[in-house]
């Protein structure tokens, strides 16, 4: 059996000599069979294989570019050079984008068209993202509801949505639901709210910021600062004296007071909005309209207008020129509507067009910012026969949609395409998100709830302090992946002809024939989006890992 003696180091004869003392052959062999050497060798072989493969592909690519794609790199001076790959982007786009928020006309450059496409992608994606979060949460919670009908319906929704392709859902929604809505003249108006649903999309009231909004905004920021200060002050006082106080309540109250004061101040100091009107119209301020109207119609009170016959009403109706969808329009329209004065709006694309109508008499007045009116008045034959009447303005006015002849004007319009894509993305991804939310809530064990109850926390405190933080840890990573998928799937807008970055790129390719260059831009746009979301996810994971320790 074995000895129990301790061998002194270095004394044993049967240890092989260290590598540096071995023969040259053995050493070379041991280097070759070194696992690190083999690993590096394998990788270099892999790289070489890739290079050879790429060369095979790209040799075809080179000659094919020569054959098919030489025209892709033509400079403006007609020469061939790679640096001119993107020169074509400065040429006129030549196609329309129906639904833009930035000003775009078809004579703008390819770059600008593409920018509009990118903006559209974000416009639909971000809104759908918010709506998905809300709907998904509601559905996830409903799935766990103790009401049998609620949870079954939620289950049916989730199963149906998750087992059908988003493309078919989108097509069904667009062609069979939204385009099947009534014509605009019979638009649906749910609950008498200023919202109209028709096959021209969704038209709804929309806030517009007047020039005085800047002042009001300053007050709002002041209100937020106040909130912070109040919070810190009350917290300190609480720590000092132990006196409990409703920090949120006080903060909101302070904020509201400052906001209201700011509203009135900014409304009273502003003098930006005006109305260009003939001097002989006997109108010096907006309040005069009522009297003018009464004398015109020969009535004693404005409410008698309703009793007038159609032709007479048309005769007394004010003809107002405005700039299309300008805040001034909403402001003046609201002002007249509040006083019950009948009017007809003529919307113009530019001040010059409005002035043409003003001059030929097809409209009696022109409502716009004072600076524009002053400049336009100077172009009139007799500037002194026309005056600019100031109109009071509030920092924010609602542009409210209203029927005019067989159309609805005012408000903001979500085109059927935008609306369908937005709804389709929301409904589809909310189905997935509902499962995520459900799993997140279920992941908080019952023991946690019991522990919270044992500590005497209220239901609200339990939800806020115990359940939500833990559930969110489970929910947020898949939530962010859902967001990423949603942003990528905005490209399905092509199915309903919504002009997002993908469809615009496709049009650009057809227009210019430069497939390669545009593909690269398109990929970069989507990769940037995905990198952004990955970065957010990593940041969140890192943060959670740290707080968990």
């Amino acid at each position, binding site marked *: 059996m074995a000895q129990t003696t301790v061998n002194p180091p270095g004394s044993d004869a049967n240890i092989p000599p260290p590598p540096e003392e071995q023969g040259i052959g053995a050493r070379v062999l041991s280097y070759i069979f070194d696992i690190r050497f083999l690993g590096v060798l394998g990788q270099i072989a892999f790289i070489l294989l890739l290079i050879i493969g790429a060369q095979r592909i790209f040799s075809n690519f080179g000659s*094919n570019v020569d054959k098919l794609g030489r025209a892709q790199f033509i400079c403006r001076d007609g020469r061939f050079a790679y640096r001119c790959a993107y020169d074509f982007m400065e040429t006129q786009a030549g196609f329309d984008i129906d639904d833009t928020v930035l000003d775009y006309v078809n004579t703008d450059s390819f770059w600008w068209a593409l920018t509009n496409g990118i903006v559209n992608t974000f416009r639909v994606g971000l809104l759908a993202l918010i709506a998905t979060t809300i709907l998904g949460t509601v559905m996830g919670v409903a799935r766990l509801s103790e009401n049998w009908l609620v949870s079954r319906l939620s289950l049916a929704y989730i199963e149906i949505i998750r087992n059908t392709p988003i493309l078919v859902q989108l097509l069904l929604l667009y062609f069979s639901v939204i385009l099947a809505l009534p014509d605009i003249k019979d638009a649906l108006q749910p609950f008498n709210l200023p919202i109209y649903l028709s096959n021209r999309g969704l038209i709804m009231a929309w806030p517009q910021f007047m020039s005085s909004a800047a002042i009001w905004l300053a007050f709002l920021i002041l209100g937020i600062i106040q909130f912070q200060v109040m919070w810190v002050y009350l917290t300190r006082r609480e720590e000092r004296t132990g006196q409990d106080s409703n920090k949120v309540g006080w903060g909101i109250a302070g904020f509201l007071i400052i906001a209201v004061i700011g509203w009135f101040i900014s409304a009273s100091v502003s003098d930006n909005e005006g109305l260009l009107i003939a001097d002989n119209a006997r109108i010096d301020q907006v309040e005069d309209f009522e009297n003018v109207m009464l004398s015109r119609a020969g009535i004693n009170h404005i409410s008698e207008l309703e009793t007038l016959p159609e032709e007479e009403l048309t005769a007394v109706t004010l003809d107002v020129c405005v700039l299309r969808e300008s805040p001034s329009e909403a402001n003046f329209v609201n002002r007249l509507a509040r006083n019950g004065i009948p009017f007809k709006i003529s919307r113009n694309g530019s001040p010059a067009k409005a002035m043409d109508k003003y001059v030929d008499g097809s409209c009696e007045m022109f409502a716009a910012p004072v600076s524009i009116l002053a400049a336009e008045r100077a172009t009139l034959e007799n500037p002194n026969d026309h005056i600019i009447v100031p109109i009071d303005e509030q920092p924010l006015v609602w542009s409210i949609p209203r029927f005019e002849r067989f159309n609805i004007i005012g408000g903001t319009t979500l085109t059927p395409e935008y609306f369908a894509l937005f709804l389709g993305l929301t409904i589809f991804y909310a189905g997935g998100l509902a499962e995520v939310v459900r799993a997140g809530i279920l992941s908080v064990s019952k023991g946690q709830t019991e522990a919270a109850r044992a500590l005497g926390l209220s239901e609200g405190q339990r939800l806020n302090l115990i359940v939500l933080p833990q559930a969110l840890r489970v929910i947020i990573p898949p939530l962010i992946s859902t967001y990423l998928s949603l942003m990528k799937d905005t490209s399905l807008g092509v199915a309903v002809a919504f002009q997002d970055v993908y469809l615009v790129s496709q049009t650009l390719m057809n227009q210019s024939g430069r497939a390669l260059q545009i593909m690269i831009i398109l990929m970069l746009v989507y990769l940037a989006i995905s990198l952004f979301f990955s970065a957010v996810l990593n940041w969140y994971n890192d943060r959670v890992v740290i707080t968990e320790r």
Partner: protein
Amino acid sequence: MASVTTTAPSKPPVQERGTFSKKFNFNYFVQDNVTGSRGLIIWVSFLALINLGLLFQQFNNAPGRTWIIFGIWAVTVLGTVVGELFTLHIGATRWLKENMFNSVSNALLTLLLALLVGIVVAGLWSWGVVNATFDPQLTHPDVRTFDGASWGVIWGARKLLLTGLLEPEQSWRVILWTVTILALWALSFIGTREQTRETRWGTLVRQFANVGWLLSPFLSYIFLAGLEYTEPFIDPRRLIIGTIVFSAIMGILWFFKVIQLTPITTALWVLSWPAAYLMWRGITLWNANAELFTTIDPDRWGGLLLTVIFAIFVNLLSLPIGILLALGRRADVQGIPWWILWPVAIGLTAWGLYSSTFGNCIGTIPALCENVNLWATSRNTVEQIVAFWPLLIPLATWAFLRSFNGNFLQAFSVLFIEIIRGVPLITLLFMAIIMAPFFLPEDSQGLSNFWAVIVGYTIFTSSYTAELVRGGLQAIPKGQYEAADSLGINTLQKYRFIILPQALRILIPPLAGAVIGTFKSSSLVALVGMIDLVGSTKAIIANSQWLGLRTELYVFMFVLYFLVSSIVSWYSRRLEERTGLGVR
């Protein structure tokens, strides 16, 4: 709580609060259900208001239906209340109490949802059944006179929906193929059932099915793609490529234990190649007039057939690629050391800088050779800066060494997976179609769109599969790797015998999900001009016979996709139960 009714009669009154306390207390009831908090008051009144409005409107629009719904609701509520007040609960009322009417707001919510469901179901019913026509003979001007659906179009346009642009006289081949595949599936299903697996004929059935599966690629090819009737009967290049690709897939799947090959089946499989050739020859000789199994261009496949072919092809191809990518991403090999990388990087940078500022050529390809001297031809500052693009090479090298420690396998897999996952599928499909002509040899007739889409789609799906597989690999405890290492098993054997079988078993549900996902998102190929199930509707709608009949088709597809997805997910659950096995 439900149990309060029967237990704890002697507890103090505070304990008995709640809707269903034994002693009903009206004050407590109101407080718990309505006036408990401001939020509750608002919520309950809101629900009540909406209910009233909806009821009022519905009594006007559809009195019969509304009376029934409201009546049922009222009676059940009444029953629950009576059961509650006089503790007379029977099974049904107890269930109702617990699941429908456990608070005032829930009772109101139940009514509201019942009314809404009534509206939707009645609307769909009247559109889809009552007012609908099922006459396939009915065509354009007449179908529009109906208020409801004209389901006849689905029967009338069945050829387009099922096989797209395929010539009608060839559709029997598709039917034959479908029957063959379904029969094989049924045989496998029977052969692997618990009751039959051990019996003699069960084994026989299973073996027969296995041989059938091995032959199925040939059968599919003959049935769906057809034969060349002139020498050399089949394009040898296509045969070789097909053989290599198919063997590689089967080999990898076999190697990683996804499928099992016994020596007998392997031998049969090897023999099946000459057998298939003889079969080929036999058909062409026997049917020399080229009536049977003539060639069909893949671009003529369409409708449901194309959707199914895509789903099968892409899933089969992407699983092995996904496994390899996942292994690459987890590869723990010695990185390429900096003293190899930096000299190469610096050399390349120098060469690139020289070419783009002084020289005039970086390669032997003539098209890439002209005007590479960006500096000399630059027109503005931006282009001058771009001329120094080779400086990105050291930057990339630095990032590579920092993030991946020189591990190229990992870097390649990570970049591949992440880039592909960052881009929408439809962009990849479009790119595949647009870019394919640039990468193909000049003498080729060009890749048909079908194959281009297959390539793009497979690349996309394998990235997602790779991430799934990686998740499965991560779920295997470290001890499994160590135990394998300590036994002296080499890396390949380790993955083949120990890691992947376990990982793939964990992965059955998510992989089934991925298969369904691929099936569903194959509808996107319609957006790049393929005539698949969704794409065929475009042709049907444009047909003057059925002008404008979209909704019927979309609803049909909606239901079809739903059914198929549900069946696959049911089947995967069954598979999971069968392999998940009660043995753990």
